[in-house]
């Protein structure tokens, strides 16, 4: 049976938008806008869901979980060129300073960006009375990602545009009893 989730869709969208605005404007001096919101019900797509991104574009995915009154995981899928630009901005480097094989540097930078985004999201949840703790970020690279969620009460996918480049936030969460 579908569980009633304590946070409305509007609130969730606002949390995601605020987290992106805060991190992108402070750390990258850029803005990003929501282009698409995908609502996935609990009993659908159990076999995995294709993300709203070009499956042939190399992507980097950062993920951080949170545990508490609300437990969940947030994935940030970013096109590699955007990830490289973000890394350059964060570390005050020029485009050419990062080699295509410099995975460790880009992974760490995107891991930290994900940590900040999920941190902002989680802190806003705390302010609403849902205390939770974060896990350590982890990073995946590749293309044609799909996520097969374990048991979740709510899953929302937000597609953002940042100066013509795309990235996606995939939020999976459930309320703990």
């Amino acid at each position, binding site marked *: 049976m579908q569980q009633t989730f304590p946070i409305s869709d509007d609130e969730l969208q606002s949390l995601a938008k605020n987290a992106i605005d805060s991190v992108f404007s402070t750390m990258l001096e850029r803005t990003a806008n929501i282009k698409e919101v995908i609502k996935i019900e609990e009993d659908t797509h159990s076999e995995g869901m294709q993300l709203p991104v070009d499956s042939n574009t190399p992507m980097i995915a950062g993920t951080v979980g949170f545990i508490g009154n609300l437990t969940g995981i947030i994935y940030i899928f970013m096109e590699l060129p955007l990830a490289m630009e973000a*890394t350059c901005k964060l*570390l005050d480097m020029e485009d050419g300073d990062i080699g295509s094989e410099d995975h460790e540097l880009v992974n760490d930078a995107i891991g*930290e960006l994900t940590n900040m985004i*999920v941190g902002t999201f989680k*802190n806003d949840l705390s302010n609403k009375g849902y*205390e939770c703790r*974060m*896990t*350590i970020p982890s990073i995946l690279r590749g293309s044609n990602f799909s996520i097969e969620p374990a048991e979740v009460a709510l899953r929302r996918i937000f597609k953002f545009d940042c100066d013509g480049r795309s990235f996606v936030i995939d939020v999976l969460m459930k309320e703990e009893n």
Partner: protein
Amino acid sequence: MRLKILTVDDSKTVRIIVKKSFKGFDCEITEAQNGVEGLAMAAKVTPDIILLDITMPVMDGVEMLTKLKSDPALKAIPVIMLTAEAGRENVMKIAKIGVRDYIVKPFKENVLVDKVSRVVDLRPMGEAAPIQKKIDDPIDILVVDDKPAIISQITEGFGHTPWNVKGVASTGEAIDFCQKKLPDCIIISLSLPEDAAITLFRIIRSNAKTKYVPLFGLSVKTAVEEQARAQQAGFSTIIHKPIDFEELETKIGKAVNLDSSGKYFQMGEGFMTVRLPKTCNASVVNEVSSYLKDKTSEAVNAGISKIIFDAQNVASLNMDVIKLLLTSMKTCRDLSLKYALTGNQAVIEESKKFEESKDWKFCDTVENAKASI
């Protein structure tokens, strides 16, 4: 002396951002990627301030902070938490353990620099450091307390030093005093009515002229609540009443960055004498250790090749003193310097109880020690 900042964060990105934030300042950044490395690095370099993340593998920031605050040699190092975890529960937890401030990620580099400069004396690169005063130079200490007896006690307690103590009873008088003459250090009674100590602290820290003046809170040891409020407001050092003047003198010396090597090191007639005081606690041992390398080099450059370690005044030989003497003696051997030890009966007896010191030979006077080498 360059300011030492230790950044403890599992993200290399954050450590790089911290480094570039302080690029224009006269400071040295050391890094650690978890709490275990952070504690080891803190013990090794004794940083002036630590920027500490919370969520890290191996040992997280809360555990590192707890361990740091329970280590007598490290607990005085101010810590600013730099973290993505800003929930109320987290903030309350870290505030209880004792942090000077916290910065929530994402952060602007100028916010980081501003918060750090509120705690330590951060100077732009190339700006000349003030001439370092010596322990026996006169300095001005302002005491803000509405109890005249305490002001008299502090004045008398520093009677043997060339330090000038000026007492005032209210925050207004304190601000007037600072406008006319910048004190080297301010001691504020935390029991001033209406939280005046915290108000004065904020005024002093927000004024460009006075923001770097070291501030001490003064409180009865049992007034825990008053002390916790003061620490949350930013007081990093609290002096307990009744006042231990030996300890206070050491703390002021450190805060004002006085060269106190003259208390321990004397040179003349071909000898350098390292005189250890009666109370040789971890803080005194650290202070002596911090001068040892430079003073030994100075002695060698002055043609001195004989060193006396004088422990005649030491009340009790603890492991910290033994480690200090072992390190010192090894340095002497490495540099082919001759050395001798002096000690009183208690020190000699205690030295026999430790494996490391049981074979040490002590002379009973400095003259005999000099004659023996």
